[in-house]
Structure formats: structure tokens, C-alpha cells
């Protein structure tokens, strides 16, 4: 068994992080007054684990005997019947399901199926009327309509049924639903907490941990406990007596994104754009959500950018992420982000140089020309052509040929006829 699953705390007493939360939950259960719950927090922070532990606390070990059911439902929707297939995980006491799987039909799931489930009240073995727990995952992906229909269900059947909602971002859950639940925020674990967990696992597995190794894994884990443990185990498998110089295996898709980022920095042209598009598709095809790609790409780009540009690029990233969520075709927006990054650079450069322009206007002065070039030095990721283009798009130059020679000289590139042709093609509009 993977360590992730092996060392998953089975009940609320054994949790290593979020201890306070676990204690509070336990109190709730013992007081027999459990409201609807909404767990939210970043992935890998332990929401699901806590929920499972909570269920066990409520119903005892029988809550762990779950079986998967794949059932088709027929829902009457006005004139037609809709068939929905839904996978549920259920024990005798609870049902776990992912209503957002149904896509745009999630409304019917909430309206019909969940209602149906909530209505049926289980009878205890002791003849006492028990209550049932519905665990709904990924509530934030539910459509607005579904969420709205959820709130009535929550109120109406609250005597026989408790809902436990689980999502990443509470901001996408409507206010109405949130206000009906006890919100439990599960933070991403701090690096120290991750280290603690890793050390615990190391002790259990009787491994020798060199000092600082766990911290390194934790730093790589992006504050996701799941990832940290998996990485830890991967390290263990790859090379056991841990060494401090050991390579912690990176996430493949992250590597790929950083490749894209360096591609972006290298060349700016429609052609390279086309190649990058292929790579984006490659990532998207492998089920990696575009939001995550975007986020990662941004952080990769920020590593390589000049300080002045960071602000601008962040702005555009936020802007296009917003649009991406509104829209449907993520690829459009990803590309536009990737490009707007470029334009941000251009714009910045234009601003920067126009500021200096009066000084630099006399292009015959080679010293000024070299000054221009020094500015360009500030952008180490431009390639040669780009730099040429920049020079001439920004500085209108009557003596552009001379300037080309100069730049070529400084870039240690031969000032060939090709260079001149390219420039004259590119900058016809700039030469008045």
C-alpha cells in the first residue's frame, strides 16, 4: 500500500495536522448535534481524510465498509426523461457522490436523486431512527442552479439527513449554501507540519532520515501533504539510504510547463506560438486543468522576468484566468496570456525607452547607440532578431543601417545582407 493510504489517519484522534479541527469535530459528534458541514481548502490538505475519520467517529467501523455502485437514474424533467449515470460510494450509513460529474445535468441530480436519498430515512438496528450522511464532493463545480436547488433540500430534510460538502474554494459555493453549513476551513499544511508527518512516517517505516531531507521534500511539495508523502516514498524507492544531494523527482507536468515557459522566452513569433499551442494541447489532453497550467506558467515566467514586468504580467494572468473561467475554450485564453506577456514586455520597453528618447534621438552618435544596447541588455531573454526589432520599433532612426551594424557588432553577429533585408521588411512602417 502506498504510504499515502497506509498512514492516513483512520480516526479523529490520530490526525497529525489540523488537530484542533479534529477535536472540534469530535466534540460535535459526541454532542449529537452535527450540523451540515462544508469542508473547504486547497487540494492535499486533508479534507477527505478528515471527513472519513469523522464518519468513522459517527458510525463506527461499519462506515468504512463501502461499496461502489454505478447506477443509472431516470429523472423526469418536464416533458422528457433524462437518464443520468452516477457513481456512488455507499456504506450503510452514508452515501458519497460527486454530483458535478453529471455536467450540465447536475441540477437534476441535486433535485431528484439527492432529494430521494435524503428523504429515505434509515432505521437503526436498535429501532431508533438514525440519520444519514450524504457526502458531496466538488461542490464548487456545481452549477448555480444545482446549488440553489440544494439549499431547499438542506432545509427540508435536515431532520433525517446531514450533508457534508467538500470543495476547494468556498467562493464558488453560493452564500445561501454556505450559510446553511458549518464551514470548516482546512488549511494547506505548513511546511513544518509536513516535516512532522514525514518524520512520523520515517519512524514507522524505520528509515533513517538525514537532517533537512524532510524539509527539502516539504519545500518541493507545494504544501500539499499528499504530494509530500508521495514524493517521500518515491525518493525512498529510487534511492534508499537518503542523501542530502538526492534528487527529488519533479512533477512531470510542471517540468513540461517550465519547458513551455522557456520556449516563450526564447522566441516570439507566430510560428513559435503555433508550437507552444501544440504543447498546451498536450497538457490539456492529459487532463491537467487549464487553471493550474496557467498558474504554474505564471510562476515559471515570473522566475525569469525582470522585476518591472512582474506586476504587469500578473495583472494579465489574473485577467485571462477570469476570462478562461467564463469561457469554454481554455486554449484561446492560455494563448492570449502567453502573448499578452509578450506585449507587456513590449509596452514596458516602449515606455521605458520613450522616457529616454530625447537623449537618444541622435542616432549617429555611437555612444548613444551603445546606450540603447545597454538597455537591451536588461532583457537577457530576447534573441537577436527580437532585439533588432525592439531597437527599431522603439527608436525611429534615420540612420537605421548604421544602427543595425552597431547592434550586430555588439551581438557578435555578422551584419549580413539577410539582416538588412529582414530589418527593412520589418520596419518599413517605422521609417515614415
Amino acid at each position, binding site marked *: 500500500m502506498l504510504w499515502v493510504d497506509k498512514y492516513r489517519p483512520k480516526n479523529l484522534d490520530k490526525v497529525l495536522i489540523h488537530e484542533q479541527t479534529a477535536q472540534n469535530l469530535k466534540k460535535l459528534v459526541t454532542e449529537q448535534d452535527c450540523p451540515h458541514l462544508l469542508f473547504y481548502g486547497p*487540494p492535499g490538505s486533508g479534507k477527505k481524510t478528515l471527513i472519513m475519520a469523522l464518519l468513522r467517529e459517527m458510525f463506527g467501523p461499519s462506515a468504512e465498509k463501502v461499496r*461502489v455502485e454505478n447506477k443509472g437514474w431516470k429523472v423526469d424533467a418536464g416533458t422528457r426523461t433524462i437518464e443520468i449515470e452516477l457513481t456512488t460510494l455507499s456504506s450503510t450509513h452514508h452515501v458519497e457522490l460527486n454530483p458535478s460529474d453529471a455536467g450540465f445535468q447536475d441540477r437534476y441530480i441535486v433535485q431528484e436523486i439527492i432529494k430521494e436519498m435524503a428523504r429515505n430515512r434509515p432505521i437503526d438496528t436498535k429501532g431508533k431512527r438514525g440519520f444519514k450522511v450524504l457526502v458531496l464532493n466538488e461542490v464548487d463545480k456545481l452549477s448555480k442552479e444545482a446549488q440553489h436547488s440544494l439549499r431547499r433540500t438542506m432545509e427540508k430534510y435536515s431532520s433525517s439527513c446531514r450533508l457534508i460538502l467538500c470543495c476547494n474554494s468556498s467562493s464558488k459555493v453560493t452564500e445561501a449554501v454556505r450559510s446553511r453549513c458549518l464551514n470548516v476551513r482546512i488549511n494547506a499544511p505548513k511546511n513544518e507540519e509536513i516535516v512532522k508527518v514525514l518524520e512520523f512516517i520515517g519512524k514507522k517505516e524505520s528509515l533513517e532520515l538525514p537532517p533537512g531531507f524532510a524539509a527539502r521534500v516539504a519545500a518541493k511539495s507545494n504544501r500539499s501533504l499528499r504530494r509530500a508523502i508521495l514524493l517521500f516514498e518515491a525518493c525512498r*524507492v529510487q534511492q534508499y539510504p537518503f542523501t542530502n544531494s538526492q534528487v527529488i523527482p519533479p512533477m512531470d507536468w510542471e517540468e513540461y510547463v517550465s519547458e513551455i515557459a522557456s520556449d516563450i522566452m526564447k522566441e516570439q513569433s507566430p510560428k513559435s506560438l503555433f508550437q507552444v499551442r501544440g504543447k498546451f494541447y498536450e497538457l490539456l489532453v492529459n487532463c491537467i486543468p487549464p487553471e493550474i497550467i496557467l498558474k504554474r506558467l505564471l510562476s515559471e515566467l515570473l522566475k525569469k522576468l525582470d522585476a518591472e514586468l512582474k506586476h504587469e504580467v500578473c495583472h494579465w494572468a489574473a485577467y485571462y484566468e477570469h476570462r478562461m473561467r467564463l469561457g469554454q475554450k481554455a486554449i*484561446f*485564453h492560455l494563448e492570449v496570456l502567453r502573448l499578452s506577456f509578450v506585449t507587456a514586455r513590449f509596452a514596458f520597453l516602449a515606455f521605458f525607452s520613450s522616457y529616454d528618447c530625447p537623449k537618444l534621438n541622435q542616432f549617429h552618435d555611437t555612444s548613444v547607440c551603445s546606450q540603447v544596447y545597454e538597455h537591451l541588455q536588461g532583457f537577457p531573454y530576447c534573441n537577436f532578431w527580437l532585439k533588432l526589432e525592439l531597437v527599431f*520599433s522603439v527608436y525611429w532612426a534615420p540612420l537605421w543601417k548604421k544602427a543595425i551594424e552597431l547592434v550586430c557588432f555588439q551581438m557578435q553577429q555578422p551584419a549580413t545582407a539577410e539582416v538588412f533585408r529582414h530589418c527593412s521588411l520589418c520596419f518599413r512602417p517605422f521609417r515614415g
Partner: protein
Amino acid sequence: MEFPDLDELQWLEVNQQEEEEEYSVELEVEEDKFEIEDDHYESEEAPPSPHRHSQSRTQIPSYDKKRPRSPLDTDYDECVRVRVRTEIETPDVSIQLEKHDNAIYLSRFASEIDGDCVPITAPSGSGERVYAKLDRHTFSVSDDIVVKNSNMSATSSGLISESVCVLLQNAEQDALLKALQSSSEVQDTLPPESSVMTEELWVNKYAPRSFTELLSDEQTNREVLSWLKQWDAAVFGNGIRNTEDEVLSALRRHSSLPLHQKHSSASFPGKSRGPKYPGKYTVTSSNFEHENNRPKVVDNVQNTRQNSSRTPDQKVVNGNDGDDGAVGVDDGVVVQVLLLCGPPGLGKTTLAHVAAKHCGYHVVEINASDDRSSATIEAKILDAVQMNSVMAHSKPKCLVIDEIDGALGDGKGAVEVILKMVAAEKKSYDGNEASIKEGRYETKSLNRGRKVVSLSRPVALSSQVIGRKDMTRSIFDVWKEVFQKRKPKQSRECNINSRKSYDANEFLYSLVSYRSDNELIFDGIHENFLQLRYHDPMLQKTVHCLDTLGVSDLLHQYVLRSHNMSLSVYYPSLTITIHQLLARVETPSIEWPKSFQRYRSLLMEKLERLRSWQSKIAPCISRHLSVNSFVEDTISPLLHILSPADVRPVAVQLLSDKEKTDLAQLIGIMVLYSLTYKNTKSDSSANKSVHDGLLDAVSFSMDPPISGFVNFKGYKPGHYELASAVKQLLTYEVEKHKIVQESIAKSMHSTDSSKLDNNAARDGENGRPKSSKMHEALCDYSHEGITMNKSQKDFCKPIIHRSTSPLGFGGSAADVKKLKFPGDVKKPSFGSFNFFDRFKKISHKNCHNVDSLEERLANAERDGRHLLFKYNEGFTNAVKRPMRIREFL
């Protein structure tokens, strides 16, 4: 006479309104209207019918109730027009009046009035309700009216033969008189607009009721009218006097020139016959409106009188956009359908109604926006057409199909139906069949009320094009249009060029807006625009273009989500933006956009694969394994864990203890995650390691292929690729492990299978070095089995427990042993000693157990057990003969 019941009161109100309308028209000195009225009376038969009589009589109360309140009135005839409202607006006056007379005429309470009363509600402000007494002593007034009416009808009874001039003079005199009288009483008489019926919307209230009141473009109105007039011959019969050709030509003169040409040249060959009836009137353009109406109305009347069986229909199709006119030449005279189009609010419907009424048709309206399916529309049209035979009063019908574009929205079915019917009608006509319905359909086209009149009607009439929506332009043309600039003529001047580009935009706009697959259009642009060679050193254009594409995506999503289809009119403008940015003169090479579709289908496929995999994993693990977290966090480390670098592709016996533990752990993980390796024919040598001992081109790949999730194009995943031999070993182990697990699960339903499995595995690890012990255990087990067979019922769980672990171990050890010989898949799985031992015993047992019942029980027992044996033929160094597994037990 009594008026207590509600029905009558309502009817009264309605009547009152009618009267108002008529009189209001009169007051405006509308000559033609007046004449229509005359006609109206005439058609209602000359002697005052009982109906007419009662109508005039019922008007009495309304006069009466006002009379006492307007003491200044002298002329009853005109005081009739005094609105109730004037009194109510000045309640003090009425109160005073009440005081004047002893009898109560007007009161807040119905009970205060003795006799019949009429409730009146104040229209403005308070909404007070008062009750007015009904007085029945004023028949004189009504008599007056009746007399007047009868006078009029008397004079007009011979109207058809009489000259129009006389009638006209009469009308003029009457009108003048009325005008004078009304002007003398302006103070008391409010204009009829401020009527009691405040419930009516102003839109309806002030809708034009006669042709002259139409505010829409004069020329268009005339065109419509002239078109309707052309039907007269066919509708009202040839024997009856037609609309004068002069009138027609006059009408046409006012229409646009091209239309005229069209009509005379192409559409109406019948016109070349020349005028049948030389015109009597010299029609001037100023009063042609008036002249125009006369003969028409006459015809109408005559027709209804003489020929009730002939009841042709006409059809007016009314729409907001599109200029598709179904055209058919009927009798060589007229097109059957007229299409009126234009932006909303220009009065298309009004024009259709007014003109049809004006020409003496009975308007049948079909509101196509209600039910749009072709079937219902067809039924409705047929209803309207065939109703003639049933209906008593048989004016010819003009079918007005309103909102035909609404019908267009649903798959154009309705228009097709109409077209079909038009065609059918024509055919039946040609065949000269005596069909009951000689329906003719007409469409009107009213183009953009104010802007151009002449433009598209001729086009619509002469061509068979049914709307440009049907334009079958391939989508490639659209993309090409977006990407390619029209070549400007060199001779043209600059401003013409600019206009040209404007035209191009218009064209593009219409092109795109007629297509419904906007998403595809933008996909195509997205796929192709990077291949174009446009000048863009700063990439600004590209950014702008992509931005626009992004907007289109947002728009699309919003439209889909909110079902607000009207927003989709903004798509074309987006393409124009892109066109402006990117268009070049040279021909672009355009490819069909595939990648987005491919991406989508691939994504679906992979998701499906993940799901099915998840469903195979035990729920206690898969519940924590959502797609997102799997792809984001789990997959890469998992692959690392699954492919440890230090597994040597050697037999298990040669491994150290530590290595064995690792291997066991690895196998445990693989089983738990229901992963295995699968034999695949390797076509690409990427997976094949150099040092694997396989000669045939067989490689092992992960099944389910989760490693595909990190196999990005042009990227080498970081995890170590296992050697083929190792994979083979793992495959085998996993397979065996699974079988063991299954058998355990079968025999022990209650215990947690995975836990037990783990235990078994661990036991196996511990026991592995001591192989001799294993053999002993096996022997023990077989002995046990036999003893158990003998004492059938005593088979109990603890024993199984005991025997489970050695067995599990035994199997695995043997299998591992088998892999000792590189390249050999087939190995004897058990030591020969053990094998024969057991074989002997079984045969021995078989000899003993002659009782068939006992044997059956033994069989049942054996099936319940979980002994594993895999017999591979050809791998024994002793006896070689085929046997059944059963015999070993």
C-alpha cells in the same frame, strides 16, 4: 326595454366605441373613409335591419345619461358625442346637477339611483366609480339617427349606378357641416382620443385605422396597395369592373421606377394586353388615394353579393428580416405572396391589415410566433383557406402571416410549407380544376420603411431565392473571406477604395450572420491565423486577434448558458475585427480545424480511462483519488514508485532480503491499484530495452496506461523505465497475487480481503527463504485436505487460515522460481516431489472412495478451497501425459 344584465352593458360599451371611431373619422373630414362607411351601410342592406336598429336604440342610454348633465346642449345630434368623461372630471358640476334635479342621476352608490344605472369609472387619478341613471325617454335622438342612416342608405342604395360625383358632394357637404358643428362645440367636446377606454394601450389606441392614417412610408404603402389591387380581377371576378388600369398605373407611377419596369416587363405579361376598361377618371396624384378606393369598394360589394362561392384568399407574410418572397405568377398576373419586412415598429402588421381591409378583404391573421412547427402552420393555413365554404359572410380573405421570421427560426419548416402550398395552388390552377378553394397567396414586401422602397421588392419578386439564409456558402469561403482582402481596383480612387472596404465588411457581416455555426468559424480562424503571413513585428495584431477570439468564446458560452440567442448578432462584428487585422491580399491556405475536436475527444477518452481504472481500485483507495489530484499530485511520484531503479531482472532467489521486501511491496502496490503490465506488440522500439532477453518483439506496457498521462510530446518523463524482464516478472507476480487474493476472498467472505492479502504476502516474504518448510507445509496441507475429505463436515475456518499463508507463499515462491531461467515463461510450478506425492495420494484416494456421493461432496469441498496449481504442459522431467487439475487434488 331593460338593461340590467351585464352582457348588454358590455355590448353597449363596444357599440359606443364603434360609434366613436366612426365619428371621429368623420370629424376629420376623411372623404374616403366616409365613403367606406357609406359602403358599409350599403352592404348592411338598405333598409335598417333589426340589428342596426337595435344598435341605434341601445345607444340611447348613453346619450341620455349625459343629457341632464349638459344643460347647455341644444343640439342632441352633437351632444351625443359629449364624453362621459367630461362630467366625471368635474364632479362638482355633476353634484350640482344632482341638486338641481330632485331625481338622482349620478351617485356614488347604485342604490341611490332608482331604475337602471350604468357604472362609470373616472379614468384619471382617483379611479372613482359613480353610477349614472339610465333614462329611457329620449328616443327622439335615436330616431334622428335612424332617419339619418336610412337617408344615407336611401341615397346610396343606387350608388353603384349613380355617379360618384354626387356622392362625393354629399359627403363633402356632410363633412363640412360636421366640421362646422364640431368646431362650434370644441369647448364641451373633448377629442375622441381621450376616451373612456383607458385600459387600452396607446399603441393600439392610436394605431392607424385607415389607409390615409398610415404613417409609414408613402411609397411602400402604395406599392402594397397596388399589389393588392392587382388581385381584383382574379378575386372579384372578371365580369365585374376591375380596378381601373389608370389607377394601377398611377399607383405604379408612385412606386419606384425599377419596380415599374419589372412589373411591366417580366412579372406581369398580362399587362401587355392593354386596358380593358378605359378609364373614366383622370386621376391626379394628389387625390388618387380617394379615387383609388371607389371602384375597389364597389367591386368588393358586388362580389360579395353576386359570387359568394368564389372566395379567394390572399396571403400576406410579414416578417422582420429576410427578404425572401415566394413568387408565383398566377393567371399570368400577380405574384402570390408578398413579403413585408423591416425592423420592428415600422408598422408592417398595421400596413398589412389596413391595406387588406381597405381593399375589402377579410383579414385572417396567423400569428406564427405562437406555434412554429410546420405542421401547425399548415393546418392553420388550410383552416383559413377552407373556412370560406363554411362561413356565411364571404368576403375574400387575405391571409396575413405575421412574424414569419419567427417561424423561420425553427428550421424554416414553415416557409417551406407555405412555398409548397403556393406551388400546389398554382398547379391546381393550371390544371383548371374546379377546386373549391381558389386560394392565392400573396406576400408583401415592405422594405425598411423610410430608407429605400424600390430596392428589394423587385428582387424578391423576380428571383426564386428563398432568403439568403439558405445560402449554401461553404465555410471555407467564410474563412477565406475573413483572411483575404479583396483586391482593390487600381483605377479606383482612394475614397472609392474605402467604400469598397466598407462593402466588403458588409458582405462579410452578412456572410457570417447567415451562418449558424459560429463556433466552427472561430475555431477555423484560431487554427489558421497563425499560418498566415501578416506583418506584425510587435505581435500586437496577434494579441488583439486572440483577444477577439477570446471574446467570441465568452460570448458563445454566455449565449449557451443564458439561452439569449439574440446576442449572437455580435459574432459577425468580431470576424470583421479579425478581418481588419489580418487580411492580406494573397490567397490563404486554409485547413479544416481539427485540433480542438481532437483535443476534446482525446480528453474524453483519457478521462474515461481514468474513471474505469478508478472503478477497479478498491473503494477505500479510489475515494481519495479524484482526477484532478491524481493528475496533479499523484501520477509522477506513483510512476517513480512503480519503477524502482534497483530491481535487478534476476530470479527472486538471487535477491537479497531487502530487495525481496521491496519487490513484495511494489507488487502489493500494483495489486492494490490494480495495475499490471500488459503484453503488447511493440511497433516502436522506444519501450524495448537493450538488455532484455526477449527475442520476439514483445514489450510490456502499463495497463491501464497511466504512464500516458506524463508522456508529453517532446518530453521525457523523469521516472525510470523498467527493463522488460522486470516488467515480465512483475506481471507474473501481480497476476498470481490477484488469483491468491481472489481465492482468499472466495473462501473468506467476512474478513477484509486486502488486509488478509497483505498478511499473506508478508507471510510469504518471511517464509520464502525456508523453502523446505514450505514443502512440508504443503504436504501437511494435502494430508489435511484428505482428512478433511473424509470428515467432510469438519472443514472449518481456522484450518483454512492456517493453510492459507503457506499456500499463498507456495504459489508465489514457485512462480518466482520459475523465472529463474531467463526467457522461459513456462516452468513447472511445483517441485516434482510434491507433485507426484500428491498425485499418488489422490489416485489412492480415488480408489478408496467408491461412493459417488462422497466424491461429490469431496468435489464440492475442493471447489471451495483455494489451492492453486498451474500446470504447464511440456515442463516436467518425468512422466508426460495430459491430466486434469482435478486429479491432483
